[in-house]
């Protein structure tokens, strides 16, 4: 019984110290945007590990996958899953180069407006710089631990896939450390970045299949 109260106490206590999101005011938004844009401009390359959690309300545990992401300005991205399986996608111009455990394929996205938009979203969310995107309504929040930008699509077709798109930024260097995509059903995907290195030399050959 005593342990039970102790537990309750800790739950209550930990929830009060947990970061609370507060809406940013106009000057805070301006300062935040400026910092993110400056940081994105100074970022030529990014190498980072990531862990992805797919949350579905009927599952006991989130589906966890992990891997590495490489970005090179202006628009090369390689997204590579290494656990529990090997799968990589390279976003390159109007193509997706896929390697599914040795099975290689190519998808042309030149004709698909939706795919282009999603591709752009991925590239821009890695950089964090997508505030001028007229396809989204953006709102800004702050907490003691992070700054947060929430993107809500205006386009009906995109909205049928993504209800909202959240980027969490470090307070100090304005880099994205978490991406959350919420589906209309409220199921969501969270991607958390770690071990990030910036502006190291990355050969273009990394982005070929």
């Amino acid at each position, binding site marked *: 019984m005593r342990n039970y109260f102790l537990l309750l106490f800790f739950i209550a206590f930990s929830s009060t110290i947990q970061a609370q999101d507060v809406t940013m005011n106009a000057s805070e938004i301006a300062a935040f945007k400026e910092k993110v844009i400056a940081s994105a401009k100074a970022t030529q390359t990014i190498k980072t590990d990531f862990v992805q959690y797919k949350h579905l309300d009927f599952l006991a545990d989130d589906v966890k996958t992990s891997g590495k992401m490489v970005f090179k300005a202006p628009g090369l991205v390689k997204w590579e899953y290494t656990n529990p*399986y090997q799968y990589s996608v390279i976003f390159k111009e109007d193509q997706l180069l896929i390697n599914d455990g040795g099975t290689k394929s190519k998808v042309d996205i030149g004709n698909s407006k939706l795919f282009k938009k999603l591709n752009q979203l991925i590239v821009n969310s890695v950089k964090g710089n997508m505030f001028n995107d007229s396809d989204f309504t953006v709102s800004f929040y702050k907490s003691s631990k992070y700054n947060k930008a929430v993107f809500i699509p205006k386009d009906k077709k995109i909205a049928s896939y993504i209800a909202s798109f959240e980027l969490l930024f470090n307070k100090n260097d304005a880099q994205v450390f978490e991406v959350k995509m919420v589906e209309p059903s409220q199921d969501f*995907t969270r991607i958390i970045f770690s071990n990030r290195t910036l502006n190291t030399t990355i050969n273009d050959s990394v982005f070929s299949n």
Partner: protein
Amino acid sequence: MIRFLAISLLATVVLTSCSLKTTEGLRQVPFTKIEVENPYFSNAEIDYVYKAKIEVYGKNFGGILIIKKIAAKSHRVVFTTEFGSKLFDFQFEDDTFTKNFIVEELDKKFIINILKDDFKLLVNEKAKILEVYESENQRIYKTHNDERFNFYFINAGTGQLQKIVNTSKTKEKMEIDFTSSDGKIADTIAIKHNNIKLTIDLEKFKKE
């Protein structure tokens, strides 16, 4: 006499050409068992998560297939891309099929019907036995499936379900092959169609 020979020869040709390859060379045996079971999606405690590779008419797609038993006779089957976005979300409850979600590109009646039939057979736990056959190392249970039949191949030694073949009266239509190390969870699943160029390969997520 010649006429008789000709007729019987013709009859043999016609009959054998109509018969299923599935049961060729097998002997039919009497049985007392009422139902045959597929144990691979029967535990409501388990999140069944598989890496999926789909090949349809030479094109390759990948994704994650998630299956969960959510009630006594009910399964949820969700397919997502590697990035986590849902491609479809189906629910099977007895004979009721519910389409919770499907992306516009796949929202076509013939695609949904194929997926529905494949996954319904995959998650179905019990089927009433019509006939039983035997080979050297397998027992084969024939069951009804609407206008068609399913043949469940059980390893006689281990008792493990190895294969389900879906047939019409005369032709094999689709086949599901299982491999399993413990007989409770399928490590790999291969779904192959004979009349359309579609294969679905599933590999269970490894434990961390």
